[in-house]
């Protein structure tokens, strides 16, 4: 029978070290919860804020800080749509594709984004400037069609608005 291999070795954390400030921030999150696992999603967001995404190697590092298994962290990191598991551009565009936007020009807006950026969902422009993703109803239906760029919500957005809008995100 083969020797059991530690999960952390399977996933591998070669060379990845949490930034000390991130580790402190993660530990601070623990204060809000009964169990350390609850800080898992916020911990992944902290890593993502620094690196832009969550590389595989960060999973065991986060697990170690929280004192939980890397499998639990990986399970969470692959579930949530706003945790990115591959590199993204400097700016992430989230396009709302839900009903109110669909009824007010989503198709045209999405096509304009594809045409102007030269990328589709899940892709990043060659200059690593933008990544395009769909998102659940943004709760901005009185401003449909809507989209977010990083932390900023816009709506209603027409195809003609896009060049000026994108200019604000170098």
């Amino acid at each position, binding site marked *: 029978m083969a020797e059991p291999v530690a999960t952390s070795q399977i996933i591998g954390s070669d060379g990845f070290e949490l930034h000390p400030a991130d580790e402190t921030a993660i530990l601070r999150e623990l204060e809000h919860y*009964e169990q350390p696992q609850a800080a898992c999603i*916020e911990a992944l967001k902290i890593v993502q804020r620094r690196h832009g995404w969550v590389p595989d190697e960060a999973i065991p590092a986060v697990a170690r800080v929280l004192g939980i298994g890397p499998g639990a962290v990986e399970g969470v990191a692959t579930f949530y749509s706003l945790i990115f598991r591959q590199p993204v551009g400097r700016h992430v565009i989230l396009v709302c594709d839900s009903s109110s936007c669909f009824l007010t020009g989503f198709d045209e807006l999405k096509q304009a984004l594809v045409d102007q950026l030269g990328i589709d969902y899940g892709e990043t422009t060659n200059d690593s400037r933008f990544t395009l993703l769909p998102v659940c109803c943004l709760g901005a*239906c009185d401003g449909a069609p809507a989209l977010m760029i990083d932390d900023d919500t816009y709506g209603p957005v027409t195809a003609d608005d896009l060049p000026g809008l994108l200019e604000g995100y170098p």
Partner: protein
Amino acid sequence: MSESIPNQRRSVGYRSRLLQTEAERRADTHPLTWRLRDDGEAVWLDEYLRKDGYQSVRKALSEGDPQAIIATMKEANVRGRGGAGFSAGLKWSLTLQGGDIPRGYLICNADEMEPGTFKDRLLMEQQPHLLIEGMILGAFANNSRYGYIFLRGEYVEAARVLNRAIDEARDAGWLGPDINGSGFDFDIAVHTGAGRYICGEETALINSLEGKRANPRGKPPFPGQSGAWGKPSVVNNVETLCNVPAVILNGAGWYQGLSGDRTDDGGSKLYGCSGPVDNPGLWELPMGTTGMEILDRAGGLRDNRQLKAWLPGGASTGFLLPEHLELPLDFDTMGKEGSRLGTGLLTVVPDDMSMVSLMRNLEQFFARESCGWCTPCRDGLPWVVKLLQSLEQGQGEPGDIELLDKLAADCGPGLTFCAHAPGAAMPLQTALRHFRHEFEQGVGKPRGEAHQDPIPVGEV
């Protein structure tokens, strides 16, 4: 996380707004919105206190009777504004407390993601202290030791406003130990999510709060018995909690009277309207206001289009027809018509929109957002999308529509682990009932006549 949030919005950015001026809103008729400012800026603590803020907490804590709060809430029959319409007072009366039972959690469901819904955003961005006040009352009634606002990650502005308001409330002694000298301790943290519609399901929300995948939990036990970390937990929607202060201050009779003789449901409601209308927006109106009045306030359809159908409260409610606009928008009436009130924000469908295309869009949403836990939802919804895509392209086969009927029935209440798949089934079943001919036209029609550029499922 606060350092990553910009303090200044870009001038062309989206702003949440209520389409009623201060002159139209009164404390006795608009309990949810009368304090809002015409300039849309948040009402901070000083202004909130000037406008009678935290009076209900003062009253409740000095009276010191949690059971009386629950009794008033039950009598007022405040029905859950997240969409399910369950009596908040009844829910609270079922929370385990007393004896050796540990103090639990009061969780605000602020994961607003129901397509067509944008009401909780307004309440949180512009009037954070009303929510905090409602949460203190809820915590006192349910013996909760700590509160969480489970906020969707995309609501960046709401997170900024709520965190500042919580700090203000804590500094002024409305949160923390010994609130207002009462001996009652309670504090609140904002927990921001990372996407996924399913987090709005209350037991999935609790799993997510605990740092797990947001799969729903089986019931029983209900959260009031065993919720977050096994402690009694209460999950209420933002708007529901924002109703509590005025109910406690003014009484159940006043609350019931707000809706007049329109409906048996009491109170006011943040109604709204979106889609291709002239004036999409939000209004606080008496519960039981008709769809017609809301559509009128929204200025009717744009570009002289006609109304074909409408959803009364989000993607998981059933389609209604123009003739249903005369009905009061309340929980029971919408239920009798084969729909649900849901969140009470109308989505308007114009006559030139293909119901097949719209259903394809809705079901792509539900298929993508399925957590994958149970089979009818995980496998059934993508199948529904594929059938709708074929029909949309005029390449449906005989039997496809009957198959849609069956798949929708198999996703019905009681056959799945949570309400996600039944929520996906209701618009489909009502669309098939009211607009079956449009689906039939998709069987064997030449390619290219239907809606262009469908998005293949699995790639979004």
